[in-house]
């Protein structure tokens, strides 16, 4: 009963938004500027995917075959950008690569022309910053999935690295790379915060940025609706394609544990070291720059920081609670009895984006209330909806294991209802629930999407507040507020994850 109602609710929210967009689109003809936005969206997403993957392949290979102090920590740190607020990274990238940054200072001493961080190159750079670590971790998984016996056999046959690449590593890459590239492409299609801060103008506007401008500045609701519909169609097509592309590589089973294999020496070793160092610098410098710029300002934060932080934390907590409950209900129902349409409902939000849902809700609510009055509840609902597919996928295997291991015992003892939730479900799923809640809270904390559409002059969340400070070129204050934002985001993640661990004592 509850799972069905929930599935219907999600479907109604997304399909209802789409229907609303279709109703409100006054003209079906895209203007030249709209076509430019479509082209730019696809171009920046494609470039970002290719570059991220192109760098991730040698990086993952280097991390796979080299052993060095801090390797484990580095691999763990590659997961951190996933919950890093986009606006913070952008601030760091602007600090390092911007006009007054060290890169341009170096160029200037050599009398070279300055590079601008704004426009296509900046958008792609920021996308690579977020997606290179993601791609590297996914590929590293692929490398580790190749049984170590194969590498041992290759070594015993005296295969040079090039032959290993051809016979062992390329088949894995062929199986995994297209799916990874598509995942990154989809993420970059909807990277509104990056386009908002680093894009802009007629030559570097994404569809989402055009939606934002149509809604907020031109009050052209029909055009916003049409653009949102176009964005929805592109994302839906990409998601549909991605769902067919996840092919696991077939290498047969391997029993071996990780075995330190001899890695090639000479120029290959120096090359690997250089690559790892460059990537570490690329990822660390922007964050260090924000820290250096922001630390002094922490003592004199602008007065708006704490109210904005409070708004963000309430939205984050509420949306984490909502999405964890929804994902739990759906995953438990799915584990009990597989249902195709519930699965579809849980995955449907993948096709939507923050701005698309936001536009749909904006158009639905506007006849009845002032959008800024509902800015926080709408942001909470949209954030919860968009994180649902991730949490659902996180919980589903655990819910299935719980069902197959303990359902019979629990029913034979008559354990049901609240007692079952308290003594079986929650303790057994505490770990993924805590991790998932942390992820959802941190993602929501750092989100800069739908709030930009709805917020009034005084209702900004912390990421929006940082972006506004950046827009006003108050960079030191922006950096200080960004530090507060990062601190709260990771603290939320850490606290929920700890709670999960605490209750999962087996």
């Amino acid at each position: 009963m509850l799972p069905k109602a929930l599935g219907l609710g999600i479907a109604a929210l997304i399909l209802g938004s789409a229907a609303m967009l279709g109703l409100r689109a006054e003209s079906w003809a895209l203007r030249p500027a709209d076509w430019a936005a479509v082209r730019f969206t696809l171009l920046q997403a494609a470039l970002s995917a290719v570059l991220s993957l192109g760098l991730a392949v040698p990086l993952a290979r280097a991390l796979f075959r080299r052993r060095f102090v801090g390797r484990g920590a580095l691999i763990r740190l590659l997961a951190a950008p996933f919950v890093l607020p986009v606006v913070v990274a952008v601030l760091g990238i602007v600090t390092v690569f911007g006009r007054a940054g060290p890169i341009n200072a170096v160029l200037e001493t050599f009398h070279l022309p300055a590079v601008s961080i704004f426009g296509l190159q900046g958008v792609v750079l920021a996308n690579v910053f977020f997606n290179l670590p993601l791609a590297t971790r996914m590929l590293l998984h692929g490398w580790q999935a190749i049984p170590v016996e194969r590498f041992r056999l290759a070594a015993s046959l005296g295969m040079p690295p090039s032959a290993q690449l051809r016979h062992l590593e390329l088949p894995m890459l062929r199986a995994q790379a297209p799916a990874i590239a598509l995942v990154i492409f989809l993420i970059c299609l909807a990277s509104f915060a990056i386009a908002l801060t680093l894009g802009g103008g007629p030559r570097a506007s994404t569809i989402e940025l055009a939606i934002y401008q149509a809604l907020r500045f031109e009050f052209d609701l029909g055009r916003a609706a049409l653009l949102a519909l176009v964005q929805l169609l592109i994302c839906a097509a990409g998601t549909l394609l991605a769902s067919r592309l996840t092919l696991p590589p077939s290498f047969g089973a391997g029993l071996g544990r990780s075995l330190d294999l001899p890695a090639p020496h000479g120029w290959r070793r120096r090359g690997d070291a250089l690559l790892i160092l460059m990537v570490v610098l690329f990822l660390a410098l922007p964050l260090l720059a924000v820290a250096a710029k922001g630390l002094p300002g922490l003592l004199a934060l602008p007065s708006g920081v704490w109210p904005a932080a409070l708004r963000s934390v309430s939205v984050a907590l509420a949306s984490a609670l909502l999405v964890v409950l929804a994902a739990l209900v759906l995953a438990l129902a799915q584990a009990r009895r597989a249902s195709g349409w519930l699965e579809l409902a849980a995955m449907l939000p993948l096709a939507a984006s923050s701005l698309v849902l936001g536009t749909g809700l904006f158009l639905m609510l506007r006849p009845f209330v002032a959008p800024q009055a509902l800015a926080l509840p709408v942001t909470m609902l949209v954030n919860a909806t968009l994180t649902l597919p991730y949490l659902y996928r996180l919980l589903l295997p655990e819910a299935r294991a719980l069902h197959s291991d303990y359902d019979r015992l629990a029913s034979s003892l008559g354990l049901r209802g609240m007692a079952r939730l308290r003594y079986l479900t929650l303790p057994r799923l505490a770990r993924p629930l805590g991790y998932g809640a942390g992820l959802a809270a941190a993602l929501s904390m750092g989100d800069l999407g739908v709030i930009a559409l709805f917020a009034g002059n005084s209702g900004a969340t912390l990421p929006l507040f940082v972006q506004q400070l950046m827009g006003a070129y108050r960079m030191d204050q922006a950096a200080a507020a960004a530090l507060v934002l990062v601190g709260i985001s990771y603290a939320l993640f850490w606290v929920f994850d700890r709670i999960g661990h605490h209750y999962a004592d087996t």
Partner: protein
Amino acid sequence: MLTLEALHLSQGSFDLRADWSVQAGARVAVIGPSGAGKSTLLMAIAGFLPPARGRILWQGRDLAALAVGDRPMSVLFQDQNLFPHLTIAQNLGLGLSPQLRLTPAQRDAVEAALQRVGLAGMGARKPAQLSGGQQGRAALARALLRARPLLVLDEPFAALGPALKSEMLDLLDEVASATGAAVLMVTHDPADAQRFAGQTVLVAEGVAQPPCETAALFANPPPALAAYLGT
């Protein structure tokens, strides 16, 4: 009395028929080749598999309407008989109150049951801190607390060594006697049947035969049993 009335179980291409009764307090072993449907029969009686046709009755009352936990029986599975995240005392307490709200008297009963199966003072431990034999004892202690008139076991001691297993069978006998329960136990070991059960049900070739005197059955095995025993 447990009655299987023209019972027909069906799972895909698998079929099993049974039409017989078990007297209250009886000890019945269920043996037969693997894949013949011993466990399936037990799971149907326990309520995990609805019959395709026929009825399962207890004292003349159809069990079909009763949820698994409300049936007049305790079940011991092959494995996963204890929740690993709960203490032994909590695992036992679930046998008295599925809400785990225990009265002081019930707490005392849990402690007494632990003592009776030789686990005195281990109530605060988690199952992982117990040996395999001790985990079996804890599961039997919970059956003792539940005190249902039927005890259904699906080879719960198969993984134990011979000495430990015979110890468990003795304890099972004690628990069943204390609660007056009839026992229906699946085993693949003919020695278990001969040692423990007065009657034996042979499951083979799609039929669960009515219970026979164990001694008589093994003295003069029908062809299906002879084939299984390899005699």
